[in-house]
């Protein structure tokens, strides 16, 4: 009875084949793989083709956290293989659904194991568990696995310590479809018996190709290792000559044709967006620590699987134990995908969000969060990028700064804080070196003067990003505008919308695609009324700050009350934040 090789684990590389900053090219059962070790030691096993044009990712570059395709620079994140950046669309965040195919990976006995759809865990081998496994040189063979396994059963080698033994006695200790275990013994009246056991795993590369990966059960002493490697390499080379000679005399089998994955149904179809703010993920607070005076930081790790890919500037909704929902930016650098790190400032007049996180949530607690959304995307084609952070507003900008730093793109990160103790995530900020300027203890007037100085001149291809308290954002927008910065070069993210919302109007909303007209009465929002009629709308902050519930306006004049769109976007009148904004005309037609 032959087991299905597609449900088994197979070795695809030796541990030394995946040094840092290298991409190993492998193949298993006809499918090509790109295998790479990130700086956090996670070994990624991916389909060896870029989703864009099918170029092999094994010629790409491994920058320690992301793999960059050599042709058009698409970047894919460690672990999740989600696309984080498309250079041809520098102003946009790639869709979260652009994600390369990944395969499981386990490091065991000095080998990297993977499989198409492996069941259970990679095999455990008693003799290797009990010993000190020592990898031999891999031997690629142009022959089917079955032929290599048959020849291996009559393979001969000398035991360690007696490499000169003329006629070692060989025993076959075990044979499976994909491995052979052999022991060599040599007797000597003076020094007694020497014996060595080798497990030969055979990787099925394709129907007519395989790789023999030998693992010696017990490592020889350091002084003898080179001689042992040489001995096995020579003996295996002879074995290969015999195997390939026999293979050449047989008809070549048809190559295996890997099945390229179709786009999964849940991505191909229009998804059922949640009717309200429904959390998609459950995470555990792995670590909680003080990231600055008054700032608690949280490291949120997935309960199972890997977290979705995020882009710099992205935020998540955090659903709190007290029922409130709050938005926090992901501060991680590129490819730091094992957990999300957020920073929460305790607001003195907290309505229960920051105080709950500070006082109630502890390490080990489980929280529900949304998938990351990016309504504050970073352009990476600027000649000058200015990041201005007011206090805890540094959080999205920290992710941006780390992404720019990793790509060696120039930037300035200006931190406006009360004192050095108020710089959140100071160790990360310090790591950004000379690109950081700390502005400590400035009065409001001094802050405005400094902003005026920093934004004094605009040159083409410059971009300014600001996140902080409302008055600071207003100052930046005002100063940049009067210094000639166009609206589309000034990007901002408000903590919250402090405008007083006027919801006294009553108007009609027609949905062009749904052929439906509803009335929005005073005291209700467009979002609430549409949801009440069964229309599925995403949302996040529900106060006009985050941009998630945007709708396109086809006719009518919006009454903008949000702080997400900029002034020229407000004037254009072609988009509306349905959670707070209303109609100045009697009727709005939305593209819904």
């Amino acid at each position: 009875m032959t087991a299905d090789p597609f449900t088994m684990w197979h070795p695809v590389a030796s541990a030394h084949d995946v040094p840092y900053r290298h991409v190993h090219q492998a193949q298993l059962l006809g499918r090509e793989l790109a295998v790479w070790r990130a700086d956090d030691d996670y070994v990624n096993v991916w389909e060896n083709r870029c989703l864009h044009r099918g170029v092999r990712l094994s010629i790409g570059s491994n920058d320690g956290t992301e793999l960059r395709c050599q042709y058009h620079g698409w970047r894919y994140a460690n672990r999740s293989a989600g696309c984080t950046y498309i250079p041809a669309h520098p102003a946009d965040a790639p869709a979260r659904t652009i994600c390369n195919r990944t395969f499981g990976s386990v490091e065991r006995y000095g080998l990297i194991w993977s499989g198409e759809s492996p069941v259970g865990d990679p095999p455990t081998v008693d003799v290797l568990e009990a010993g000190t496994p020592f990898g031999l040189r891999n031997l690629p063979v142009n022959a089917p696995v079955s032929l290599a396994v048959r020849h291996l059963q009559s393979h001969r080698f000398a035991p360690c310590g007696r490499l000169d033994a003329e006629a070692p006695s060989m025993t076959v200790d075990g044979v499976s479809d994909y491995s052979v275990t052999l022991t060599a013994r040599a007797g000597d009246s003076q020094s007694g018996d020497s014996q060595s056991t080798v497990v030969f795993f055979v990787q099925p590369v394709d129907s007519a190709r395989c790789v023999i990966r030998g693992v010696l059960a017990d490592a020889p002493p350091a002084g003898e290792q080179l001689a042992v490697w040489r001995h096995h390499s020579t003996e295996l080379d002879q074995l290969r000559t015999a195997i390939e000679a026999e293979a050449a005399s047989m008809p070549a089998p048809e190559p295996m044709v890997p099945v390229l994955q179709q786009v999964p149904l849940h991505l191909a179809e229009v998804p059922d967006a949640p009717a309200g703010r429904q959390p998609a993920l459950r995470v555990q607070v792995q670590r909680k620590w003080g990231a600055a005076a008054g700032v608690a930081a949280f490291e949120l790790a997935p309960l199972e699987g890997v977290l979705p890919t995020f882009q710099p500037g992205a935020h998540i909704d955090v659903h709190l134990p007290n029922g409130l929902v709050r938005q926090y930016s992901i501060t991680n650098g590129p490819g730091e995908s094992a957990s999300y790190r957020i920073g929460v400032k305790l607001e003195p007049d907290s309505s229960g969000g920051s105080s709950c996180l500070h006082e109630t949530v502890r390490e080990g607690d489980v929280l529900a969060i949304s998938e990351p959304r990016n309504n504050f995307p970073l352009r990476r084609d600027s000649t000058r990028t200015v990041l201005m952070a007011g206090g805890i507003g540094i959080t999205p900008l920290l992710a941006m700064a780390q992404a720019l730093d990793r790509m060696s793109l120039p930037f300035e990160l200006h931190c406006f804080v009360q004192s050095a103790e108020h710089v959140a995530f100071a160790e990360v900020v310090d790591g950004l070196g000379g690109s950081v300027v700390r502005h400590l203890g400035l009065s409001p007037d001094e802050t405005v003067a400094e902003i005026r100085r920093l934004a004094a001149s605009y040159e083409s291809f410059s971009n300014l990003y600001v996140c902080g308290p409302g008055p600071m954002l207003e100052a930046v927008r005002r100063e940049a505008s009067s210094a000639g910065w166009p609206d589309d070069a000034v990007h901002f993210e408000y903590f919250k919308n402090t405008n007083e919302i006027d919801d006294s109007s009553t108007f009609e909303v027609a949905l062009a695609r749904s052929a439906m007209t509803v009335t929005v009465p005073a005291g209700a929002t467009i979002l609430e009324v549409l949801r009440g009629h069964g229309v599925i709308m995403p949302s996040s902050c529900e106060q006009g700050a985050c941009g998630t519930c945007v709708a396109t306006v086809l006719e009518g004049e919006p009454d903008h009350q949000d702080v997400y769109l900029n002034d020229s976007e407000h004037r254009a009148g072609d988009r509306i934040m349905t959670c707070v904004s209303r109609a100045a005309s009697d009727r709005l037609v939305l593209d819904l």
Partner: protein
Amino acid sequence: MIKLYDYVLSVNCYKQRLLMSILDVPYESIPVDFYPGWEHKSEAFKKINPLGHIPVIDDDGYILWDAHAILVYLAAKYDPSGQWYPAGDPERIGETASWMLFAEGTTNTASAARLCVNLEYDFDLEACQAGAHRLFRVLDEHLWFRERQGLDWVCSGAHPTIADLALFPDVVLSEEGGISRMDYPALRRWTDRFRRIPGFVPMPGIFPPAAVKAGSPD
């Protein structure tokens, strides 16, 4: 200034550009219309090199042809460290000569296969590919054992030589000739190391490397 009779897609011309960039030697590139013009076979060019080959260098009136000979000359004359052509070390100079001859083999197989595929040369493509695989098996094993001894390059010692440089473009462009390097992981790692040498310059089909991990030994 050195004049290099040059063609952008020629591996043998690239070897000269690469060494002069690494050694920081200024030179003037004189483009030769190799394909499709066959200018190197013209009567005018045969007055420079009667064999009708590129590259040729003209170093202030001193004319030299044959790619690997030019590497020897440039390294001997312009490398003050004496490492790229280790003339003072008989064992290493012997190894360098041996692997330079091996590189003639990779040029005549791997790079010849590339000329068949890219520039319509009429060689026996399958024979070129099979020959390249035979040499790559030897080189991969050699480099694997070098790595086990903490050595990065084809010859002994801690510094690369013109033998690495002569082999590098033939190896790294082999896929253009239909020769996969999947079976040669040690050879693939060596190409990453070579691309991190200060002064490295790419050519069409050869990409710059990823940065090394901070604090890592290589």
